[in-house]
């Protein structure tokens, strides 16, 4: 390992870029900055990956089908395309769900595809798609069927929306809607999130009148119930007397979405994947939204208190304090125990559009330092905060995705809070319709990098020698080949939950196990180790 960790940021960045052709190097340099808050510097994000550079990003279809719509259990999701795309996005273990009864609908363990063949590419696949929708309807009689377009569909001109409309009219009791989420459409899966938000807003939200009972009604947006996170949060809300109308989309049903307009507050976890829906619901129904984070014990307490503050009800606040008092101390005591072993260790996080930020909270609680972080599909606002949104360059890829024109609903709009009330809440530190991004929360020395490539990750490891890396399956084994443990934060290595208080405890335990493992010390056998004088034991 040649690089010294004392190399200043600028030089180190230059060294990373040096290995690329100069044009590529210059482009990549713009995606790497230091997290110095006093010198606001622009990070390049959400731009196309250079062909041939191994990125961890997925496609538009992956973001639409796999991330946003996948975790809803009673929608039959049909992939219109060749078999691969449907198979790869088969959600068998990652997102959890709890049907009300064992007989209740749950299609998440199924994978449906039109399995397009040559003849459909040549002569069009609409007929086959209609047959597929009909067959799914006949087999399951689901409440909703969603159709996801893959690359060839857009190119051969199959109109999935027209087919969906026709079938919906034909069935009468099944909501059928389509997504033009062809893989090539956007820079990353982020484009797919936006497309999913639009269609769910257009076709589902606000379609059921029945309002759920409850005094303090909220929606939780951008929580996908990986490893059972949503269950933890649901439990917490229940204990506090907060009514969860719907979660987009962990442990959700299509009816939850349809009734979401009855909530009085939208809580946004993953800002990147779902802020569109939060904004549109605010315009149409008058529901304010607030950024929260339930990852980390202190962050969870903070988020709950913010909800109490928003509703301004003393009984609710007292109930929240009671729940927090019981759980926070207990969790912090456990963290203190683990911290004896984790204090001073270092971590790097390269994941998602919010997790690279949220999980820094948990590491802080363990006394661990985040020395580098970056998103896979974040935008500038996820790094620098929403204040930069007006300055973000709108490129062809962004223009490609429909911006819905949303207006106030004449019947369903209801003002929850006046402008003045919202301003007062903001003054109290509530992130109302705002997100400050990852950078302000980071150590000023930390390295921030967007869409880290395989090669760059290797350079960062060589330079910083971290004790732990958090990323996904695509990085996992390459990192562990170096003897550095990698915790997957996309699917939690099928562990978890890590949200809220109970989740935080699980995470401390997991990190304790991973950074304390003796396995990596055994890599070098004794015959390859330099000779050490050994005490001679005489029996």
């Amino acid at each position: 390992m040649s690089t010294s960790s004392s190399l200043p940021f600028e030089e180190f960045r230059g060294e990373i870029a040096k290995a690329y052709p100069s044009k590529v190097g210059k482009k990549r340099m713009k995606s790497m900055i230091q997290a110095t808050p006093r010198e606001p510097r622009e990070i390049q994000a959400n731009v196309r990956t250079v062909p041939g550079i191994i990125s961890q990003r997925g496609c538009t279809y992956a973001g639409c089908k796999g991330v946003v719509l996948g975790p809803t259990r009673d929608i039959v999701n049909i992939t219109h395309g060749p078999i691969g795309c449907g198979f790869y996005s088969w959600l068998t273990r990652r997102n959890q769900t709890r049907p009300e009864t064992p007989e209740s609908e749950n299609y998440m363990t199924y994978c449906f595809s039109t399995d397009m063949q040559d003849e459909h590419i040549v002569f069009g696949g609409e007929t086959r798609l209609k047959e597929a929708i009909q067959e799914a309807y006949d087999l399951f009689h689901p409440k909703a069927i969603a159709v996801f377009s893959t690359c060839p569909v857009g190119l051969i001109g199959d109109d999935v929306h027209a087919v969906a409309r026709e079938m919906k009219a034909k069935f009468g009791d099944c909501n059928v809607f389509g997504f033009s989420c062809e893989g090539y459409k956007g820079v990353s899966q982020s484009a797919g999130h936006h497309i999913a938000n639009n269609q769910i807003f257009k076709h589902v939200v606000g379609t059921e009148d029945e309002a759920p009972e409850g005094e303090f009604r909220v929606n939780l947006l951008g929580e996908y119930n990986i490893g059972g996170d949503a269950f933890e949060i649901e439990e917490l809300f229940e204990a506090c007397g907060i009514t969860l109308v719907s979660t987009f989309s962990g442990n959700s049903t299509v009816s939850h979405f349809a009734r979401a307009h009855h909530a009085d507050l939208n809580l946004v976890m993953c800002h990147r994947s779902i802020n569109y829906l939060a904004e549109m619901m605010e315009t149409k129904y008058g529901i304010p939204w607030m950024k929260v984070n339930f990852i980390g014990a202190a962050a969870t307490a903070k988020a709950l208190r913010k909800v109490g503050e928003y509703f301004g009800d003393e009984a609710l606040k007292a109930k929240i304090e009671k729940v927090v008092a019981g759980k926070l101390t207990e969790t912090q005591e456990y963290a203190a125990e683990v911290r004896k072993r984790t204090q001073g260790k270092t971590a790097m996080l390269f994941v998602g559009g919010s997790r690279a930020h949220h999980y820094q909270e948990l590491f802080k609680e363990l006394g661990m330092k985040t020395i580098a972080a970056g998103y896979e599909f974040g935008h500038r606002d996820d790094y620098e905060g929403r204040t930069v949104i007006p300055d973000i360059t709108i490129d062809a890829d962004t223009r490609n995705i429909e911006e819905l024109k949303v207006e106030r609903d004449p019947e369903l709009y209801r003002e929850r809070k006046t402008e003045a009330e919202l301003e007062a809440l903001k003054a109290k530190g509530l992130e109302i319709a705002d997100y400050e991004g990852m950078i302000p929360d980071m150590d000023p020395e930390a390295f921030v990098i967007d869409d880290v490539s395989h090669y760059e990750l290797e350079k960062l490891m060589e330079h910083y020698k971290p004790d732990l890396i958090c990323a996904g399956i695509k990085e996992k084994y390459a990192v562990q080949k170096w003897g550095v443990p990698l915790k997957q934060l996309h699917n939690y290595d099928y562990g978890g939950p890590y949200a809220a208080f109970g989740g935080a405890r699980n995470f401390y335990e997991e990190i304790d196990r991973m950074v304390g493992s003796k396995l990596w010390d055994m890599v070098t056998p004794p015959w390859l180790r330099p000779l050490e004088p050994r005490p001679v034991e005489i029996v």
Partner: protein
Amino acid sequence: MKTTDTSNNVPANETVATAPVRPLKISKPGRAPVTHNACTVCLPLGVSLAFRGVENAVVVLHGSQGCATYIRRYLISHFKEPVDIASSSFTEASAVFGGAQNLKTAIDNVRISYTPAIIAVGTTCLADTIGEDVSMIVREYIKEHEGEGDLPLFVPLPIPNSRGTHIDGLHQACRAAVEYLSLGPEDSFQAPAELPLADATTPVGIFPGLVSPADIRYLKELVQDCGLRPVVLPDLSETMEGGLWDQYEPIPKGGTAPAEFAALRDALGTVEFSTTVHKDSSAAELLHERLGIPLLRAPLPVGISATDRLIGTLLDWSGNEISQKHQQERDRLIDAYADGHKYLSGLRVAVFGEEDLVLGLSGFLNEVGMELVIAGTGGRTS
């Protein structure tokens, strides 16, 4: 699937097909409009895996970056090893106007980051649908970079994705690798490697299809013990199951080496564990057609009969006796069959998976007295 005699007296150079003894009802594939819970993945996965077993090779998939990412995600989770696959990362504009420039940029960047000896260029549905000709783009690239000393060998794989499964992709990629790296393509613009044999033992080609790295290590040992030199394609034995690194390996060590590709030309025979893959997709058939190399195409050797046929053929070719080690192993297996029979006899089993795996397992299940009640594959062979 036709039912044939599964006896051991099959001529070595004949394509052999076996099926479970009880004729199964075969439903016509591709009929159901909605396919649920498929047993197959897409063709580029097979292509990518095949070249993961070729020494110093990198795959570039021409199309949307999601294809490379999904395939990586899937292969990495399965093998628990790093797998790099590059992509030409189509934009909407490339989808409309063609992605040749993207592919060339991708090749440039792969050459810089990996300095590979071989670049295999596969296609995806997107590239197929808009009619991209990867062979032509590769030819253009070679022309544009003529004379550059570090220019790798290219294997273009213009295989339409909507015409097969991952297994078809794997076999067709192996055939293309043999064509380009052993024989030289008919419209040769790249000469195959001319390398002397490092090992004097007579080579035998093994095209195992989709088996595990441990299977491949065992097959190599078996062929060696029969007095022959195994040339396995794809050779995933080290590339997809390795230990820790002391220095970064952009491309993991191992895989079928250039000298081994050259050795295939002098092979005594080839064994391909597939009876379902079409003749035009078979590497063994290609060597047979072009060089008259005898071949054995058989289902995956699971169980006594199928393994007997494999070992019998290898011994026929080498003229050697079976080693005591393998004879003893066979004896122990028969013994285990007898011991296990009372537990297994008559149990009803469903098997699903790749066609040749299903055939191989069916043969084995039949041997141990289990009753195969349903066999499912996602392939189109009938």
